[in-house]
């Protein structure tokens, strides 16, 4: 501001006869007091009315400004605000699109990996049942072979297992009725025991034997019952075979998971 250079003060409407800058502050205060104490005149009244108008307008404007919405704005301001809002909306929409894409990507990926995981789980279950590392249950049959005279050898039992496998048996267990249980898998061997009975994978079993098979029970039973089939052979050996069809049999004997010592998975050939 032009505090130190009074000559540069803006020109005022009042007919200013430039006051001497040597005015004492006392004089100014005295004039102010005098003005405050002046007798009411018509001019003073008009000035008062104008001041009242000013105060009124100030109060009104302040109040209107406090709760002014968009209604008090100019057209250009409204247009600018509208532009801002539109631009902001489009920016937010773009952002929302990006996020939607990301979400779709992420959830799609996770569902893909979930599906892969589920497939791997099912495959491992299937292989586990085949390899005998998982317990299995389902419909099937129980074949009990009582062989009091020791005429049933390993060959008959092997034929029996083969017949059952051909008939669609999926999981096998062979056991002595009151003894050890052996899960039958692809590499299972059966040999005759030294003093009667048989040896299955190194486990000695003796009569009566029980073979538990999971599969379609009717097909399995039919496969055993055909003329010249397993039951006929057992009858000729003076042994007795009894087939019981069940809606649910359970095989709980397990095999340890084999760890291949030399074989490694080969990379899959495509095409």
């Amino acid at each position, binding site marked *: 501001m032009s505090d130190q250079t009074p000559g540069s003060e803006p020109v005022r409407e009042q007919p200013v006869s430039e*006051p001497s800058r040597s005015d004492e502050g006392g004089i100014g205060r005295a*004039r102010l007091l005098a003005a*405050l*104490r002046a007798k009411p005149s018509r001019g003073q009244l008009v000035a*008062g009315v104008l001041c009242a108008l000013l*105060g009124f307008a100030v*109060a*009104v404007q302040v109040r*209107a400004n406090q709760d002014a919405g968009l209604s008090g704005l100019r057209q250009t301001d409204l247009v600018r605000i509208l532009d801002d809002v539109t631009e902001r909306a489009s920016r937010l929409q773009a952002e929302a699109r990006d996020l939607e894409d990301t979400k779709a990507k992420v959830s799609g990926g996770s569902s893909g990996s979930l599906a892969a995981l589920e497939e791997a789980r099912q495959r491992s279950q299937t292989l586990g049942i085949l390899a005998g590392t998982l317990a299995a249950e389902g419909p099937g049959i129980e074949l009990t072979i009582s062989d009091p005279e020791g005429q049933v050898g390993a060959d008959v039992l092997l034929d029996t297992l083969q017949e059952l496998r051909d008939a669609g048996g999926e999981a096998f267990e062979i056991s002595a009725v009151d003894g050890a249980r052996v899960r039958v898998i692809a590499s299972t061997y059966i040999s005759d025991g030294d003093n009667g009975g048989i040896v299955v994978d190194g486990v000695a079993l003796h009569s009566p034997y029980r073979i538990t098979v999971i599969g379609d029970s009717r097909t399995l039973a039919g496969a055993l019952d055909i003329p010249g089939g397993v039951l006929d052979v057992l009858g000729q050996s003076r042994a007795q075979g009894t087939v019981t069809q069940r809606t649910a049999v359970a095989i709980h004997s397990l095999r340890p998971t084999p760890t291949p010592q030399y074989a490694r998975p080969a990379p899959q050939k495509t095409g």
Partner: protein
Amino acid sequence: MIAVLGLVVGIVGGLFLEPTVPTGLQPYLPIAVVAALDAVFGGLRAVLDGIFDDKVFVVSFVANVLVAALIVYLGDQLGVGSQLSTGVVVVLGIRIFSNAAAIRRHLFQA
């Protein structure tokens, strides 16, 4: 004294009556208020200078308000309303400051 009383009465009236500003006046009222403030400060300075004349005060008050409103109106018609309003406020603000500086010198010698 009457002026001060009038100011107080006006403010109180505006606060208690809670009038709404007519839509047509809305762009002009703020500028008019600033212009009137300029006139009041000028009048106060004139009082301290000992040259106050109520006729001059009234005329300058009314003229200030009218000119300010006219400028804003013109600006609105020309499409530069907000810029002109800003300009008017700046100019009036400078004048208010210079008047306030003169008043301060009178009252406080500084």
